[in-house]
């Protein structure tokens, strides 16, 4: 039974792709008119993925790795494979992906009811599932890179779904461009790694960068490379993961992604796009563990991101923006967990965050609409869960702080405080701006929301067995944060803490820094380039002058030398012809003289030729 599921796990990748093709090519045959078919196909693919991956996950032995590969591209003896790599980690990520995407798709059925061309949206969702599942099950890093790029493209398409609205298209463009940094770092690291393995490793098959061989590859690189190639490769992989997961220097794109629709945000922020960085980091742990500096870097970057983004989230008036900052902060915590090599806690944090964050996004009201009581309550419950007061968040925080020092405990407690603070504040801001209504929500929406909540609770129950409930600092700090925020904002939802407010509202000016320094620098650089081009490169005066100088020289030569020669010839011919004219003056004696001169000349020429020939032959004969 397990064999059957494992062997057919590739269907979880290909089914969304087929449905994407059906929806996109089928629009020529008016498939999109049958909306029920679209909904059924989309939900079926996700449900199928959930079924396959969950059965495989719960039955797969923890040390077993299923790997199949076939050559995709051959260049002499350098082969790029494509295939499947199924183990616990990939199955966990895939299960979370399919669960969240199933519910989000269910939610978006009701959400996108009145939108035009919603079939395209569902096609993109399927394509997104395809890219994500393909990445999680990919056999080597080249394949990972392929799906990585597709995921970037799909996020661009999903965020810019309403491409006619200018803010959304610019936001999608910004997301795409910032993601290119990470993609470039990724492919650069891949090429470097593959090249050095191919050049120095005894086994050329290692150059395919199969995930199974990553231990060997990292050891070889660490041992053989005398130059800082190993460090460069690690840093580039790190950059690609950090960009995708919206960490400290690159987190600005996630706030722009809030322009997307609610289900898209729920999907991107929770389980999928930002999870790629985590997934890559977990996969490449053999690289980082060899050099502890990188793990420390992860810790530092995670903490910095968590603090900056938490503080920034405290001052946002737009709920989606606040939640986006919160996502960055939570991912920072996950990277912190990976940095201290607490992988289990990292994964638990990731799963809990995935469920809770998608729930938070789903329960948000639409623009210019009142908030349901039901959604409001669910939002608060999930907020409590995320900040670590109840349910899975509590246990995840505890697992994270387990075996850590005092300083880290204090830091994490502070983060929990901030987390609960900004969540309450966001809820209150939304309450203040849009108000509440007693209307019952759509049954489909309610189902998906409840399902996600139940998933969260199920996860909590699953974790409850291993929990010890000994570490209480984050719990109390989070509770204090709730109460503090409630006390601070219950009367005035827009109360501003004096100094910190400006700083946090603008995200510590990182985005402004990028726009002002990088893009301004770029603009100035382009201005400088155009200036150089206009004044120097496309300024042909020097060449013109050179050509003119040459022309004057040539004119001088032509006038004075060549024309002089020609004139000389002309004059001499004139003189000769005048002489000739004199000779032709019907005087018989002139004719005689003429004939005599010519005959003597001919004689002279003949004799000179004779002498030359004579001496030549004599010289030749020796």
């Amino acid at each position, binding site marked *: 039974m397990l064999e059957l599921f494992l062997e057919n796990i590739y269907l979880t990748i290909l089914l969304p792709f087929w449905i994407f093709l059906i929806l996109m090519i089928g629009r020529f045959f008016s498939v999109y008119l049958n909306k029920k078919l679209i909904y059924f196909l989309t939900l079926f693919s996700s449900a199928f993925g959930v079924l396959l991956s969950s059965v495989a996950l719960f039955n797969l032995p923890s040390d077993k790795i299923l790997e199949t590969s076939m050559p995709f591209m051959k260049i002499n003896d350098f082969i790029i494979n494509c295939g499947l790599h199924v183990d616990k980690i990939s199955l966990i990520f895939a299960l979370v992906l399919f669960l969240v995407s199933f519910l989000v798709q269910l939610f978006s059925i009701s959400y996108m009811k009145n939108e035009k061309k919603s079939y395209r949206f569902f096609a993109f969702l399927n394509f997104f599932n395809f890219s994500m599942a393909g990445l999680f099950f990919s056999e080597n890093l080249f394949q990972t890179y392929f799906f990585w790029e597709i995921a970037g493209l799909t996020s661009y398409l999903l965020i810019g779904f309403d491409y006619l609205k200018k803010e959304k298209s610019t936001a999608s463009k910004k997301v795409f461009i910032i993601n290119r940094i990470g993609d470039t770092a990724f492919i650069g690291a891949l090429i470097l790694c593959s090249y050095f393995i191919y050049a120095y490793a005894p086994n050329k098959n290692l150059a395919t960068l199969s995930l199974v061989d990553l231990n060997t590859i990292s050891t070889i690189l660490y041992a053989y490379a005398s130059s800082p190639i190993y460090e460069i490769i690690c840093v580039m992989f790190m950059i690609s993961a950090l960009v995708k997961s919206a960490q400290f220097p690159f987190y600005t794109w996630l706030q722009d992604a809030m322009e997307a629709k609610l289900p898209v945000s729920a999907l991107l922020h929770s389980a999928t796009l930002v999870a790629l960085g985590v997934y890559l980091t977990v996969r490449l742990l053999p690289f980082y563990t060899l050099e502890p500096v990188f793990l420390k870097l992860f810790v530092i970057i995670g903490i910095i991101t968590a603090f900056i983004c938490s503080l920034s989230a405290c001052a946002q008036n737009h709920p989606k923006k606040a939640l986006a900052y919160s996502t960055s902060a939570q991912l920072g915590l996950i990277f912190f967990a990976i940095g201290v090599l607490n992988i289990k806690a990292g994964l638990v944090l990731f799963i809990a965050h995935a469920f809770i964050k998608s729930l938070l996004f789903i329960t948000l009201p639409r623009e210019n609409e009142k908030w349901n009581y039901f959604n409001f309550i669910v939002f608060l419950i999930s907020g409590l869960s995320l900040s670590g007061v109840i349910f899975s968040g509590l246990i995840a925080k505890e697992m994270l702080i387990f075996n850590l020092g005092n300083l880290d405990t204090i830091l994490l407690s502070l983060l929990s405080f901030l987390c609960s603070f900004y969540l309450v504040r966001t809820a209150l801001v939304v309450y203040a701006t849009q108000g509440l209504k007693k209307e019952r929500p759509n049954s489909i929406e309610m189902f998906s929301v409840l399902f996600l909540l139940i998933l969260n609770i199920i996860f909590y129950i699953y974790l409850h067995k291993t929990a010890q409930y000994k570490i209480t600092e984050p719990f109390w700090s989070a509770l204090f944060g709730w109460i503090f925020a409630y006390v601070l904002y219950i009367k005035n939802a827009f109360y501003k803490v004096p100094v910190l407010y400006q700083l946090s509202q603008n995200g510590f000016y990182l985005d402004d820094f990028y726009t002002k320094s990088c893009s301004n620098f770029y603009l100035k650089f382009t201005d400088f380039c155009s200036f150089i081009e206009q004044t120097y490169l496309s300024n042909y005066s020097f060449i013109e002058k050179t050509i003119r100088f040459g022309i004057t020289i040539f004119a001088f030569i032509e006038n004075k030398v060549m024309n002089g020669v020609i004139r000389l010839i002309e004059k001499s011919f004139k003189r000769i012809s005048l002489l000739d004219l004199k000779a032709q003056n019907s005087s018989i004696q002139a004719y005689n*003289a003429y004939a*005599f*001169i010519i*005959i*003597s*000349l001919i*004689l*002279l020429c003949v*004799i000179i030729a004779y002498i030359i020939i004579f001496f030549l032959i004599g010289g030749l004969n020796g």
Partner: protein
Amino acid sequence: MNGIFNPIVFYPSAVLMILFAVLAIKFKNIFYSLLSAIVVFFLAGFLFYVLGAEYNAVIQIAIYGVAVPVILGLAVMFTDLKKEDKTTSNKNSFYKILLLIFSIIFVFSLLFVISPYTFDYNFSNSVNSYDVISIFGEKLFKKYVLAFEFVSILLTMIIVGLILIKKDSKDFESEELCKK
């Protein structure tokens, strides 16, 4: 010593001949030049004789040395001797120099041609003058008799032709006169 190789015979006659030839051209008076031409022709006949061609020498002296100057002198008699040539122009000096240069070139190139380096000499002169006369007659009346006859016919043709042309031109002149 044979006369051919004797420089005492050769040099005076050659130098005199060249000298008188130059004088014949240089003299302004036509009679002087005629007289010096006679000297040149006589000296040429003398050289013929020295070379062993007595018959040629005789004919040379008879025709060139006597007959031709006499005829030319008769022709000069027709012309007006008192008229003097005043057509000596400075312009011609350049052409004179040019022609002299070219004549020197001519002389030197011909010298190259006849020089012993390019010309194969195998000199042998064993026939005496009597044999020469007999050979001369034999050739003239056996081998070259046809050419001899042609020359005689040419001479008669000249005589007759001159008379005829004279008549024609006179007729032409008289016709012109009549037209006037």
